[in-house]
């Protein structure tokens, strides 16, 4: 029994190391900057990164199968665009628009998954085409940004869910947390989730073991599509606008979050909670930068890269020395 517990812990070393580093970084920020050490700063991490978190959760599914989804940023933008366009220009109710947007995202993801699987084309290229298509569709709707004034959207944007101690959360943050919990349950406690891991471990083996490879693969990309669309909806709440240039490069942030969280891009190994940590790391770096407040544009980039570097290298070295 003890051996199993030890083995379990050993398997989670990367996760623990990442968490500890994250706390250290937060501590360093608190020492360095006034007002940094507060619950609200932590909650803001969640509020400001809710959409990234949701998108990264979808990306985790894909990466765990050994795939990649480059279309997420563009799908987020498309979701904001379609929402804004339908709500503002056609006066559709939010309750109709949101499910529709989610359905479009899911269907798009499923289609990409189907193409990837059926024609054995590399996911990179199919989802890159998906990215072009989704961005392109944004511009065909409108090259200008569309503001949303619809009351249900503004309500979602401005509602503050009070927490003890004068702190608050936004509805989007709550939705993101719900998504994380749901995804955790699916990945670790359902057949679908285990098939995802199996597929990432060895697709050929999964096939020979009689697992539903086609269904799993299509589902995974559909999940990513759904999460991107939902991320788009949350971003619409956050920005109250639809715009074709929203979320440019978000796919890289999402992939980075997943990988920082310890998931292998080759698939089969990783944790959803790691992804959550990854998102928090990226968010915290942003927060540190904005608290610093004196960095020029280029130093901003260099410092982001530098912090990322320190984080990744420490994470690797500590994990490795523990293993040995």
């Amino acid at each position, binding site marked *: 029994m003890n051996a199993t517990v030890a083995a379990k812990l050993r398997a989670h070393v990367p996760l623990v190391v990442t968490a500890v580093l994250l706390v250290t970084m937060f501590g360093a920020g608190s020492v360095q900057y006034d007002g940094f050490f507060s619950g609200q700063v932590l909650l803001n991490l969640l509020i400001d990164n809710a959409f990234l978190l949701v998108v990264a959760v979808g990306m985790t599914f894909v990466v765990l199968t050994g795939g990649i989804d480059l279309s997420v940023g563009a799908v987020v933008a498309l979701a904001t665009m379609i929402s804004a366009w339908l709500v503002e220009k056609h006066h559709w109710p939010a309750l109709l628009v949101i499910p529709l947007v989610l359905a479009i995202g899911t269907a798009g993801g499923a289609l990409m998954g189907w*193409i990837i699987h*059926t*024609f*054995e*084309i*590399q996911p*990179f*290229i*199919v989802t*890159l*085409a*998906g*990215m*072009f*298509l989704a*961005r*392109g*569709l944004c*511009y*065909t709707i409108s*090259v200008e940004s569309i503001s949303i004034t619809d009351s249900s959207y503004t309500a979602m944007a401005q509602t503050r869910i009070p927490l003890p101690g004068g702190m608050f959360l936004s509805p989007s943050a709550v939705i993101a947390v719900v998504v994380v919990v749901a995804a955790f349950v699916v990945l670790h406690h359902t057949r679908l989730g285990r098939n995802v891991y199996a597929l990432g471990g060895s697709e050929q083996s999964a096939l020979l073991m009689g697992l*539903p490879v086609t269904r799993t693969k299509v589902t995974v990309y559909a999940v990513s599509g759904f999460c991107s669309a939902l991320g788009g909806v949350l971003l619409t709440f956050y920005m109250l606008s639809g715009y074709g240039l929203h979320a440019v490069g978000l796919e*890289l942030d999402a*992939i*980075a979050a997943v*990988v*920082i969280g310890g998931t*292998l*891009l*080759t698939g089969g190994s990783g944790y959803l909670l790691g992804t959550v940590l990854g998102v928090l790391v990226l968010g915290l770096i942003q927060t540190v930068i904005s608290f610093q407040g004196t960095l020029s*544009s*280029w*130093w*901003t*980039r*260099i410092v*982001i*890269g*530098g912090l*990322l*570097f320190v984080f*990744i*290298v420490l994470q*690797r*070295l500590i994990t*490795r020395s523990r293993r040995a």
Partner: protein
Amino acid sequence: MTKHRLFWPAAVLAALLLANVAFTHDFFAIRIKDGHLYGSLIDILHFGAPLILVALGMTLVIATGGIDLSVGSTVAIAGALACLHISEAPDPGSVGTVLTAVALALAVALVLGLANGLLVSRVGVQPIIATLILMVAGRGVAQLITDGQIITVTSAPYQLIGGGYWLTAPFSILLSAAMVLLTALLTRSTALGLLLESVGGNPVASRLVGIRATRLIALVYVFSALCAAVAGLMISSNVSAADGNNAGLWIELDAILAVVIGGTSLNGGRFSLGGTVLGALVIQTLSTTIYTIGIPPETTLVFKAVVVITVCLIQSPQFRTRLARRRTAHHRTAAGTAAAPANLEVGA
């Protein structure tokens, strides 16, 4: 002939080129103007040259199962450094100044590539994240070098690299052709290619046969950075200006796309330099086609998506057999067959 690995990428390229003729009748015409070759095909090669170079380095990285996102930043840094050096030199027009500028850019690229390589091979960071660090920070470094401005240089020898002509042909075409040949020679007439493919194909087995994977991997990232640096020199030399903010922006995506269209798998292993060159030319031709036939900017991306997915479908053997089967299936149903076997599609 259709079995050859390069057949389908080549066919796609040919189809794209032919599509242009419908819009511009003298598309294939190449003339000599002022002692220079002049024509759309030359333009494609000329503007495609940096992409070919970047994709060339990327191919070797991908062959080892890695990926290099930092090439765009390296492009910017190389151009910025060279132009800064030239613009601050007392005699920007002298060959000596330009040569030191080039050496400086290549030396820095070497260091950057080594940093990537060590992070991946020694520290064991996943390639995508290791190079993402330099992708983010490197762009900042480039902006730092140019101070966020565009550095304009007037230097005839520097302009030769990306914008000049040599023996009537654009020098950049000759340069990238030479680099491609050199790389082909380096990988295929030494054992380097085999060892790289082995490392990418099965890293565990490669260690057990005694391949020094760590070194090889570090080497390909250095090579990729050098290729990117030369591309950066070309891009900045072509417009006689260094743009730290935008030079090489998103070129990594194009380069990876070129490699993949060329038939190299992102999982590592077998690579094809010829395929990569074709892939890069497909991408460049696609841009030219968009300009030529006047696709409005709003729909450019939709058009690109359609072309990319078509290219991939055509290359997919599964797609082709499906098409073929659909055709024969029509025949069969027409002819009528004996009792078809029951399909064992037991549902869940």
